[in-house]
């Protein structure tokens, strides 16, 4: 069954669904800068704006996978540069723990990522997204953390 399914997917080009959580002050602005500079990255990336990376609850990430996301990336200010002083330090611990746990459960570690992108790093934002999308695409669809009911 599993094998057949992946064969079908291989026939038409697989386009991953990727959710990018970006903090309002650095990474979202970095994404805007990538736009200002017309730095292309795959349209598979969809950005959700949060005030700070520390607003991202592990439940949101699991929810994204449940609903069919193939990768989730979380971007925030560089450590030390958090608009709220310490938010990204908490993020760093939380996400390190969560992603480590997901990997412990056998979820491919390339499906999750934390990246620090400042408001000045438009090029880094685009390059990061490009790279992440490629890695996720290479992994193929997320099967290990999906809710079949959510697939049409």
């Amino acid at each position, binding site marked *: 069954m599993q094998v057949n399914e992946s064969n079908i997917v291989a026939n038409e080009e697989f386009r991953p*669904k990727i*959710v990018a959580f970006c903090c*309002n*002050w650095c990474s*979202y*602005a970095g*994404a*805007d*800068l*990538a*736009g*200002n500079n*017309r*730095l*292309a*990255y795959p*349209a598979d990336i*969809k*950005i*959700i*704006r*949060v*005030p*700070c990376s*520390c*607003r*991202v*609850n*592990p*439940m*949101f990430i699991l*929810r*994204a996978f449940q*609903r*069919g*996301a193939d990768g989730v990336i979380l971007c925030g200010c560089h450590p*030390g*540069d958090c*608009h*709220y*002083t*310490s*938010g990204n330090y*908490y993020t760093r611990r*939380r996400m390190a723990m969560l992603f480590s746990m997901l990997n412990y459960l056998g979820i491919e570690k390339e499906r999750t990522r934390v990246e620090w992108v400042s408001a000045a790093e438009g090029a880094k934002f*685009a390059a990061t997204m490009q790279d992440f999308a490629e890695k996720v695409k290479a992994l193929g669809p997320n099967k290990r953390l999906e809710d079949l009911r*959510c697939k049409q």
Partner: protein
Amino acid sequence: MQRIGVFVCWCGSNIAATVDVHAVAEAAKLEPGVVFSTDYQYMCSQAGQNMIIDAVKEHKLTGLVICSCSPRMHEATFRKTAANAGINPYMVEIANIREQCSWVHKDMPTGTEKAIILAKAAIAKVHLNTPLTPGESKVTKRALVIGGGIAGIQTALDIADAGYPVDIVEKEPTIGGKMAQLDKTFPTLDCAACILTPKMVDAAQNENIRIISYAKVEEVGGFVGNFHVKIRKKARFVNEDVCTGCGLCTEKCPQKKVPNAFNLNMDNHRAIYIPFAQAVPKVAVIDPDYCNMLKNGKCGVCAKVCTAGAIDYKQEDQIIEEDYGAIVAATGYNPISVEKFDEFAYSQSKDVITSLEFERLTNAAGPTAGKLLRPSDGEHPHTIVFVQCVGSRCASCAGKGKEYCSKICCMYTAKHAMLVRDKYPDTEVYVFYIDVRTPGKNFDEFYRRAVEEYGVHYIKGMVGKVTPENGKLKVQASDLLADRQLHIDADLVVLAAAIEPDKSARPLATMLTASMDTNDFFTEAHPKLRPVESPTAGIFLSGACQGPKDIPETVSQASAAAAKVIGLLSKNTLKGNPCVAQSDELMCNGCSSCANVCPYGAITYVNKEFRMPDRTTKVRRVASVNPAVCQGCGACTVACPSGAMDLNGFKNNQIMAEVDAICK
């Protein structure tokens, strides 16, 4: 159910070129709750905004989705539009289909497909939006200026002139900063002390200004309008209110070998000293590292000679706590240490000096009483070589130099060269430069005068090596235009060292939650449009702590920062950000996880009585958020295991609705 209106902007061709805006508007119509959807050339224009207002009225819209540029650009605009249309401004969501869609995706099908998904996510979110009203907080009408150099003094004077009390915290025993150490100032050559010291006196005498010298900021709490600051005033072992500044003690103290920091350690002062004659406050200070009385209890001469009885060996550090509405960082700069540049032999020869040392050597109040004498033998130097860009524009010298241009060196070196030639025409002066940068009023004319009228030898090239030999400094350098290597026997070499932010700035920035760049200069809220504000509300920037600056620029920035502070302090209340955390008391466990992560201390706990389903009452400890203090980061919402804590404007269910819409 909300009645949602969707407005898709073309942004001329910025969006419309890669996104089929009409298709987006049509697709939005199919979403539940959307009762109106349209596209328009410029949504942010007056006509576009009127269109929104009309649609709100006609279709009785309760929520708006604008598919346009980044919310960082026009969220505020459309919130105002919503308010004008009579609905709560927080019922607006922006789908960013320009910066994050049309500008980064090249073909129409891809762009359109993504734009539709982004629109759907915004629609899903706005369904769950609730009207929000910003809270108000009072403004403490007092400002704090950190740093008492020319930047801090000017800012404080301007704020005080507008009628607001202001405190200057200065880490040295006197205000004045770097400018007090300078001799003359370019391009007019008026003496620094003549124009600075009157301002220092003004600051001291202004009844709205309190100078807290020999002090540092230790703790900053609160937020714009309501900062609470703890200042540690170091013990100077002299009662500031009693000391008359007569200076008798500084002549009688037997400990004579204390390096004089004000003269960059080129001479000594006593263990009790007044940094310089025009110091403000003009009060003596005892250096505890050198004072015999403080070290081993044997001496007490200063106390004996002091007729005012101001000496107090038992004085301790004093903590001053004060509330402020605004804080200005004016921490200034320092020249970098040039010791690591071995080729210039700074640590090998006393006659290789930095430009700031040169200032002291030519200053009438300096160690040589203004006579330009070689530090090694006190002789008059006949050949002087100035080296520009020592450590500036230095991309590869990791840990040694700075990648940026220090901006002020070209001009002060021209000044030094000119002054030497003016006072001592028998001296040959060489200036090695990479580029001479003179953008400023009368700056290039000034530099040309140095060359044309004063005969300073400007050589395009760089000094490669300085070797001390037989009391001379052998300077090996390139002359690029003549295409030859020069060997000059110099008596004095002056290095124009790069400047860097003061070391105290980094810890201060952390306390202020103000951001910094990689060079430790404070970041401005906008590099062009908000150059004197930090991104953190209520924190302002004055002078070289924001970037290298000369005096005229520093003073203009200082006054600009003051204007911003005055604007803030003139308000009685500030409207807060309504997107703050909120605790559901029925679900709160009172576990304190949220309070542990809150960077602002916005969460407190109260014991509250609850009616239980069985009609008994129960007292429970529950979290309560102070909306005036909360900045809305959301750290608490994730720390809370029960999900009792949520963030207005970015509620759990709103973000999950977005996730769902994107992953559908």
